[in-house]
């Protein structure tokens, strides 16, 4: 599904504040499984998810998505692969304030060339799945934390991606809402999605639905590299 070969990522290269976020990371991410990347802050989890999800390019190494080498592709093609393959759930949700929940969910699909009505229909269906039908037209700043996260999940799914990437999804949620999130992931797994989660929350990496835990520290995988 996604294969990483000797990935290194260096930020601010050649400058005094140069920082190596990942060093020689090799990994095979299996399809239709839930993989959790755990480790302390600064261990490289978010950077690794960014590279897997085609959001950033590695400084060295190769990335294969569905056996296609994507590291050398220009931004345009990379964006196309990202849009088609990956759905992102961010730690801060990153919903756009001032527009409704359904409009936020529609955002990733607006540039696909699909008619607006079809995108809206699908966005409403997704909100319905997450119990937010009644909040579809509410502005996102009026929603509670749990509702906002469910809108963010619906947004991640609107382009029907095969892989869902969530970065510290429970960082701002209490235990009940965290369990709700995991229940949502359970449904996605059952639908055949591959799920990658970065988290240092024991509730997440200890959950029953998790197939594999990859432990990271100082930009390296220290446990769980082999599938």
């Amino acid at each position, binding site marked *: 599904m996604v294969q990483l070969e000797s990935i290194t990522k260096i930020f601010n290269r050649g400058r005094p504040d140069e920082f190596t976020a990942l060093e020689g990371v090799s990994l095979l991410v299996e399809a239709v499984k839930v993989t959790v990347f755990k480790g302390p802050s600064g261990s490289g989890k978010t950077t690794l998810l*960014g590279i897997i999800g085609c*959001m950033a390019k590695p400084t060295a190494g190769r990335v294969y998505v569905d056996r296609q080498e994507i590291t050398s592709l220009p931004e345009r093609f990379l964006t196309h692969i990202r849009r088609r393959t990956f759905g992102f759930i961010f730690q801060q949700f990153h919903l756009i304030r001032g527009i409704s929940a359904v409009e936020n969910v529609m955002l990733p699909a607006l540039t*696909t060339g699909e008619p607006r009505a079809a995108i809206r229909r699908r966005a409403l269906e997704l909100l319905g799945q997450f119990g937010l039908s009644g909040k579809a037209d509410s502005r996102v700043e009026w929603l509670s934390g749990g509702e906002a996260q469910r809108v963010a999940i619906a947004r991640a799914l609107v382009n029907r991606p095969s892989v869902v990437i969530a970065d510290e999804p429970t960082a701002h949620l209490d235990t009940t809402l965290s369990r709700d999130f995991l229940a949502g992931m359970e449904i996605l797994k059952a639908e055949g999605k591959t799920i990658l989660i970065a988290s240092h929350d024991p509730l997440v990496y200890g959950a029953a639905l998790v197939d594999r835990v990859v432990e990271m520290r100082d930009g390296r995988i220290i446990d769980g590299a082999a599938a």
Partner: protein
Amino acid sequence: MSLVERHRNILDFAISSLARRWKKNLALLAVYTFTVFVLASVIFFTEAVKREARAVFQGAPEVVVQRLMAGRHDLVPQAYVEGLSRITGVREVRGRLWGYYYEPSTGANYTLVASGDPSVQPGTVAVGRGVARTLLAEKGDLLPLKGARGEYVSFEVARVFSSESELVSADLIEMHPEDLRGLFGMPEGFYTDITLKVRNPKEVTVVADKIRRLFPDTRPILRDEILRTYDSVFDWRSGLLLVIFAGAVTAFIIFAWDKATSLSLEERREMGVLKAVGWETSEVIAMKSWEGIVISLAAFLAGVLAAYLHVFVSSAALFEPVLKGWAVLYPRYDLVPHIDPYQILALFFLTVVPYTVATVVPSWNAATVDPDLIMRQ
């Protein structure tokens, strides 16, 4: 089809994005529209008045001959009319009788002209609408005018000129030639000036040279010279008006430049989110460009439409004192609507294009950030 759909969706989002910051954008739209309105009004008005003047002078004689005495305008003897008629290429030589009349009670200057019109009988006058308005005179009223010897002579208003000719007839009083001579005490056998027509318009300057040689004490004034003077007078006036509004235009440029070239933190964050959820750099820039196009196009259309209504429906009510230039007898007339596509295009390129381009540059910087940056916030 998918490209159209894609841009429709991006445009929809751009409009909703503008609506979210409606206070700031409404203020920008208002100032932008006002600037386009001022520029378009000046262009429409100046061009329409120039066209009007050209139309009025179309049937006028090609040459007016004045006699000078010690550098001052003097009366022309009848013998000059006969002399000018003998110049080759000249046709229709006519002596004109006219003068100025100051009316102290209204502070207005009227132009009194001897009329060849049979409807203007001795003892009657035809007056322009400006005269009729200031003196509250209607057809059948008596109009007293003070003569050269201090006596008042009353004339019956036989006709008030139609409003179509008001641009040139506002201050006009037409009367019988004998009445005009009597009122001003002008001797028989003399005229104020002489008009002549030339058979071949290309020979007008040659004829003017001949006149100067044959009658060295005269000054031939060509119709084209008058038209050029009119054009430059209105150009000068429109320039004056633009100078008055230069402050407003400059304020707009600074305001628009600031708005267009700087992105708020919120806008930068939104652009990062769009990239993170799968928008390409070019799509984010397209969205910001659409915002610029929507604002500038709306301001352009509203400004041009308002200027059209202002100039051609309300007769440029706001600019009247500066642009028309009459002291007391403001002419009231509707200008014939005319729009020069070249000028509209020039205005478009001076307003819409710079603003749209100015919005793209900072968006480019903001849109080229790595999408993974948003994951670190």
